[in-house]
Structures are given as C-alpha cells and as structure tokens.
C-alpha cells in the first residue's frame, strides 16, 4: 500500500521538467497561436455589443448594432443575395464535380491522372481572373456573347446577364467544382465496392444500384462536401467583387468591405461585427452538422482493410460523351474566361472580336501599368509567398506534435482550435485580425498597415489545411520510430528534426508549395487588411479594377498568372513524385 503511494508520487514530475526546451518551444507556439485564433472571434463578439468608440471608457453595451443591421432592408437583401449565391454555387459545383468524381473512381475512363492534375491546378486559378473573363463574356451591355447574339438575332435586350445572383453563382460554382470533385472522389474511393457488387449479384440494374445503394451510401459524404462548399460560397469575395460590386449587387464579403472602408465617412465596425457574429453562429451550426455527417460517412467505409480495388464500369461508347462533358467543363471554367481576359488586355477598350478590333490591338495596358505600385506589390507578395507556408508548416508541426504525440491533458482541444479557421469563413478572421491590430496591438506593436498583419492572418487561414496534412502523415509514422530515437538519447528537437521532419518531408514540400500558391493569389483577406503601404499583387489588380482600369486589371492578372506557372510546374512535379506507387 505505502509502496503504491510513493510510486504514484514519484511519477508526478512538474510539467516544466517533463519536457526539454524544444518541446516547450512547441507548446509555446501552440498556446500563443491558439490564443490568437480564439481571440479574433471573441473581439468580434465583444465589439458587436459595444456602442460608441470601442476604446472610449464611456462606451456602453447594447444590442444596438444587431437591431440596426437586422432592421436595415439593405443588409437583409445582402443576406438573401448571399444565400441565393451560395446555393447556386453549390448546385453548379456539384453538378460538375460529382459526375467527374464518379467517372474517375468508378469507370474505366482513360486519362485519369491528367484529369486529376487539371482539376487540382484548376483550383489555383484565381477567382478574380475567371470572374473578369465571364464579365467580359456575358455583361448585359458589353458582354461578348450578348453582343453577338443581339446582332445575330436582332434582339434589343441581353440574353444572358452575368451581373445577377445566378450568374455570379454560376461563375463561383465553376471555380469550386474541383473542390466538389476532390471531396466526393474521396467518398467514392472509401466506399466498400462489395456493397455495390452484391447489389449487382442480386440482379438489380445499374440505375437501381446507383439510386438505392451508391447514392444513399455516398450521401453523407456528398452532403458534407456540400456544406463545405456552401460555407466557402457564403464568404466568397473574388467573384461578387469583380462582377457584383460595380453593379451594386452585394453579398456578405463585399458588403463587409463596404462597411469597413466606405467611400464616405468612418468605418462601420458595429454593423460589421454584428453581422460577423451572426455568420460565426451560422458557421458553427453548419460545422456541427458537418462533423456529424463525417462520422456517419466513416461508418460506411471499408473496414476490412483488404486491398479492395473496385471493378471499374466499362464506359464503352459512352467514353466519348464522358470526355465531351469534361472538355465542356474545362472550356467553360478555365479556357474561355482566360482567353477573354487575354483579349481584353490587348484592346484599348473592350469589344467583340472583329477585323477592326484586331487592327486596334495594343500593349498599351501593359505599358501604362502603375509599375511603382506593381513592383511594391510584387515585393510584398514575394515575401509573403515565402514566409506564409514556412511559418504555417512550422506551426502545423507543433500542433500535430502536441495533439498526437505529447501527453498534455486536453490536447485534443488544440486540434479543434486548428480546425476553427476551416469552419469560420476566412473573411471573419480577417475582420478579427483587423480589430485586434487596431484595438489590442496598437500600443504594443503597430502592425496595422504592415505585411506582418497579413502574415498573421494568412497563417491562421491556412492552419487548418496544414494541420490536416501534418496530422494524417504523422499518424502514419509509427510512434516506435520516434521512441527509438528518444531511447537513443535524442532530445525532442532532434527527434523532430532528424526523424519526424524527414519522414514528413514529401508531405511538407507538397503542402508548402500549395500554401505558397494559394498565398500568391489570395485577395479576400488582403483586401480587408491592406492600406497603401502593404498592398499585395492581387490587391493592386483589385484597386485597378475598382478604378475602372479594366484593361490594366486584365493585363496585371495575366502577368500574375504567368508568374505562377513555374511554381505550379514544381508543384505538379512534386505531386506526381508523391503519388508514384500510389497508383494514381
């Protein structure tokens, strides 16, 4: 009895002495970043009730902002717009992404690796680029398609109007179809194919199997993908900004920007924070549902662990149709909008192709770009493209290590915190960081208007993705590999550097490149937080666009895309190396 007691006492080593310095550094990173992540929504919540100047001691608390926002018919209209926009996005992206996923995972469609590559790389094309393309195509007045149809059919009204909720949802949906594809392909891949085969042995025809077995089983996964896409659509900025802004059709994100930097008067933080709080609650509800669906989806997955490979449906003569469908998607979502952007950048003012138009072609827009601003933006973007993925991945390794490997009580809470930026729309975090910089950091470190504030918000925004990557790889690395290094006397830092990091290596390179590319084209978060002094390249594009320099904006977009090409090639090469042997 007494022996037991002393033994128990002996095991209770104080926290600080149980871990070596590098472990403590990792705890430090995780604690402070978690505090920051939680602080942002809390600040928003706090300020949404604060009436008067927030730092003024005389300010009081009330529901005034909420009442103001929800009784404002314009704000209500914005909410309705946003709902319609995200629903259209959802429908469009699933109607392209889901069939693609099924074709790749369940049929003998040729050329699957190319399709995967195109889909992934397609995700990198910035939304503002395709939005510009579609605006030039289907603007009710200047749109190329409308102009051609008008002259062909002798109409006096436009056939298509892209400057509408449905039109914007269509464009956003096309650019999010790869997300729908990647998520639903994973669902099909995880499903036990013998569930379908046994239905086939029962004599059921193909469409019955699809309706009664495949879809019901894939449903939780598809719905989860749908919720995720809906959330992205809800907070999307690029497309509503490029297409809707000048036509005064606002959705949540663009409305937020008008509140935070109105053309006239002071920033309206009150209504912005009240609406953000509402969106946080909505996002919370959706992620709770998402989580429940995910657990249900996992229940349906292959459990036998046998290397099942599903038998692939012979497409036969439908092969051609399948490829036509895919080709139509790529034409609509990538190629045509891009060609139009190129066309627009080469004309003094936008007009449909004709002999005269070709005669007018000029490099004027490229030459007249505000190069001083562009080079400043390029400098800032370059710094962020290198720093963001590096810092994010260091933090992600620390998070994964604490969650999966340390014995810290309550460590799974940190996993939840790392998931928050995925669940809550990024733009809300942007607002949180903005308020944090203005009201908390002001006296301590004036980061507002510097690229460091962008670095913070970019790191927070990408943390969910990065920790998902490091978590799943670290789970696969057997603990023994680390423990044997520990037993040979290595410190935690050495174990991470010499054992974990090399094993994580390929994943880290892959994730680094992806985050770098996403950072390069990030517009939403940057727009909220930039001033004259910390503009990034996409923000320069945006400022040209709002100043009605459409040709210049198109020209700079092209320059930006060309600069992305080398990193995309590198990314593609790494992705191919990684999937080598994974048979895909």
């Amino acid at each position, binding site marked *: 009895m007494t022996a037991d007691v002393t033994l128990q006492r002996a095991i209770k080593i104080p926290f600080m002495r149980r871990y070596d310095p590098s472990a403590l550094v990792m705890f430090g990173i995780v604690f402070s970043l978690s505090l920051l992540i939680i602080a942002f929504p809390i600040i928003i919540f706090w300020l949404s009730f604060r009436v008067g100047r927030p730092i003024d001691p005389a300010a009081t608390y009330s529901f005034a902002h909420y009442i103001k926002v929800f009784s404002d018919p314009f704000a209500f209209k914005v909410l309705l717009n946003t709902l319609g926009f995200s629903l259209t996005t959802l429908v469009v992206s699933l109607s392209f992404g889901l069939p693609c996923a099924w074709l790749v995972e369940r049929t003998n469609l040729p050329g699957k690796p190319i399709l995967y590559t195109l889909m992934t790389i397609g995700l990198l094309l910035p939304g503002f680029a395709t939005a510009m393309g579609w605006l030039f195509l289907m603007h009710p007045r200047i749109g190329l398609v409308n102009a051609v149809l008008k002259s062909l059919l002798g109409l006096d009204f436009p056939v298509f109007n892209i400057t509408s909720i449905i039109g914007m949802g269509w464009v956003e949906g096309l650019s999010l179809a790869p997300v729908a594809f990647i998520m639903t392909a994973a669902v099909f891949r995880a499903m036990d194919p013998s569930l379908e085969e*046994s239905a*086939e*042995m*029962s004599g059921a025809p193909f469409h019955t199997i699809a309706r009664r077995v495949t879809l019901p*089983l894939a449903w939780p996964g598809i719905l989860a993908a749908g919720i995720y896409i809906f959330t992205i659509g809800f907070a999307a900025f690029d497309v509503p900004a490029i297409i809707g802004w000048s036509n005064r059709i606002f959705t949540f994100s663009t409305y937020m920007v008008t509140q935070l930097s109105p053309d006239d008067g002071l920033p309206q933080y009150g209504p912005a924070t009240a609406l953000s709080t509402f969106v946080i609650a909505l996002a919370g509800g959706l992620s709770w549902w998402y989580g429940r669906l995910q657990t249900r989806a996992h*229940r349906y997955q292959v459990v036998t662990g046998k290397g099942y490979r599903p038998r692939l449906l012979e497409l036969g003569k439908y092969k051609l149709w399948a490829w036509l469908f895919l080709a139509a998607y790529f034409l609509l979502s990538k190629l045509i909008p891009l060609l139009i952007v190129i066309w627009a950048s080469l004309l003094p003012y936008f007009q449909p192709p004709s002999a005269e138009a070709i005669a007018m072609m000029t490099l004027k827009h490229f030459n007249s770009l505000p190069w001083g601003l562009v080079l400043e933006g390029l400098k800032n973007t370059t710094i962020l493209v290198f720093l963001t993925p590096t810092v994010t991945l260091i933090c992600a390794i620390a998070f994964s290590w604490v969650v999966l490997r340390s014995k810290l009580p309550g460590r799974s809470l940190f996993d939840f915190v790392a998931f928050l930026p995925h669940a809550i729309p990024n733009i809300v975090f942007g607002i949180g960081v903005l308020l944090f910089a203005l009201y908390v950091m002001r006296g301590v470190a004036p980061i507002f208007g510097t690229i460091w504030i962008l670095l913070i918000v970019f790191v927070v925004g990408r943390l969910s993705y990065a920790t998902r990557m490091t978590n799943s790889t670290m789970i696969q690395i057997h603990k023994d590999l680390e423990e044997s290094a520990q037993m040979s006397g290595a410190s935690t830092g050495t174990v991470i550097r010499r054992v974990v990091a090399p094993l994580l290596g390929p994943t880290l390179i892959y994730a680094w490149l992806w985050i770098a590319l996403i950072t390069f084209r990030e517009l939403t978060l940057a727009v909220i937080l930039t001033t004259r002094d910390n503009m990034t390249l996409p923000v320069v594009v945006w400022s040209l666009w709002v100043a009605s320099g459409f040709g210049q904006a198109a020209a700079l977009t092209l320059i930006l895309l060309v600069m992305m090409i080398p990193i995309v090639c590198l990314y593609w090469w790494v992705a191919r190396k990684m999937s080598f042997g994974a*048979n895909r």
Partner: protein
Amino acid sequence: MIDVKDLSLTYHSSGRQTHLAVDKVSFSVQKGQVYTLLGPSGCGKTTTLRCVAGLEKPDAGEILIDGSPVSSSVTNSWVPPSQRAIGMVFQSYAIWPHMSVFENVAFPLRYGPFKVSSADIQTRVTRALSQVQLDHLKDRPAPHLSGGQQQRLALARAFVMEPKVLLLDEPLSNLDAKLREEMRVELRQLIKSIGMTAIFVTHEQIEALTLSDVIAVMNNGKIVQEGTPLDIYQRPTNPFVANFIGQSNLLNGDVVEATAGQRAIRVKTPLGTLACEATQEVAAGAKVVVSIRPEHVEIEKSAENQGNALQGTLASTSFIGNAMDCALRVDGQILKVLMHAERTPPIGSPVTVYVSNRHCLAMRA
C-alpha cells in the same frame, strides 16, 4: 451444373507488371454439391469465384451454368452478373448499412431480374430469415448485428431469390474462433437443407474438410488436386497437397523397384529404402517424393507395418494436448512422429518405429 473450362485471367496492375492470377483452371460442380476451392492466400481462389460470378472478365476460357455459357472466349458470349441469377456471400458480407435487416434481404426480390409481388416478398423474406434464425431481428438496422448474425444475413440475402448457384468467399474468416467452429457445421447443414449448389472458397483446411463434398486444392493459380475430403487427406497425389492438408514428412527419393501395373514400389530415401505405394504410375529410376504423415508412424510392430522399420533416437518432444509431437533423428534426418503422450519414451532413448506400406505415399516430384 457449373462447368469451368480452361479459365485464365491476368491482372495488369500499375505499369507493365502483370500477374497471372488464374491459370487454365477447369472443374465442374454437380447439382446439390458443395464444391470447395482451397489454397493459400493469393493463389487465385477469389479471382476464380469472381469470374464465375461475372465480377471479373476472364481473358480466356468458358463458364457454363446449367449447360448454357455465361462467359466464353470461344463464342465471345457474356452474361452480366446481374443476369446470372447467382447468390453470393462476400468476405466482408457487404451488408448495406443504410437498410434494415428486412430491406437487405428484400433487395434482390424487389430490384432483381424477377418481378415478385410485395405479398410474396413478405413471405419469402420472412422464410429466408427464419431459415437463418434471424426472423426476430428483421426490423433492426443492419449495422446493429453481431458478426455471426451479419454472416447469416448475408447468406439469407444470397439465397432468397432461389439462385441456381451460391458462391461463398471465405464467409467464416471474419468470425471469431469459437463462432467459426459452430458455423462450420451449421453452414453445411443450411446449404444442404436449402438444397443449393455451392462453390465455397477458403484457405482453412479444416473448413474445407468439414464443409465440402468435393475439394479442389489450388496453388499459383492452378488446381493441383481435386477429390473428396477423405481422398484429399488420405491420398494426396502431389507434395504441395500432402504438406498443405495436414502435416507430412516429405522425403526425396529414387524409385529402385517398380512393376508395371502395380502400385507397390520400393524407394531409396535418406531414411533408407522404403516399401511405398505409388499414387501415380512410376518407373524404376524416377525421382519421387515420399510423404509420411506423423500420425501414421507407429511404435508397435504389426503384420501390416513390419515392412518399413526405422531406427532412431528421440531428439525432442512437445506436448500438444491430445498427443505428443515428437522429432525422431533417423540417419541424421528428422522424422516427425505423433505419439501417445503416456507411451512416449524419454528424450535421447533409441526408438524403432514402423510405417505400413500404404502410408508411405510416393508421388512424382
């Protein structure tokens, strides 16, 4: 009932790698028989079964069910799996988790090739469920079943549409040891009581021996021997079979004496010259393998076994419950012998053992 002729299938996995999974396999199953494909993991049993089901397309060969070809590289005919009217139990059971027990079993009747009225569906599903003793669970969501219940549900679903043939792919391998033992006997009774023709796939010899009317032993994509369980066990014609089914001492040897038309031969082995029985026609000088099962080695001399007497010393013993597993050193060679625990002499003592001629089986190497 089922005729498989010269079936071959090659898998083309990643890149240029190919794997001949089934190599010119032929067999036929009579009506009402339980026919078993037995072999080590990866020998091509599942692939053969999936060809019969129509879930894989063979590269060559012919499959006939009830005399009509369902897959033939000769006439290039092909019947899709949904039209073959075959019931199949998958290794994972493939119970649809989004349906109830009743709905799972009703599925083949509801959506299968034969139209069944809903009243009929009710009675037939109920009957099938009571045959597998699951009638009291019919409204339960299918995931809420134990392993054994899921296995019986998969079985009921497979035979509810009264298919001509039942295919079972390692149906017992997902059960725990105790349940597996019970289900072995129960499964055979069930199949027999429904009166169905079945092809059963397993890598467990004990399952094959208990369940089957005929066993085909497979290795490397080929059938190496076919016969009744007793035949396969007692008269292996192939060293692989002798060693895979039960245990065997395998001795390489040369035939020193053989008479045409006679089974009895003499073989020179490392243990000396033995009087053996040939499983195939062999001539003097031929290379053979002699198989002696440990339980056929006796320590008491009798009229039958006095022909082959071997002298050695007891090298080691291990007690395995119902017997003593012994290793006897004979001329520097180890001979495995099963002895009665109480009659085992101490280690190191000289022992003389006897094996009757008919238990020394000589087969072509």
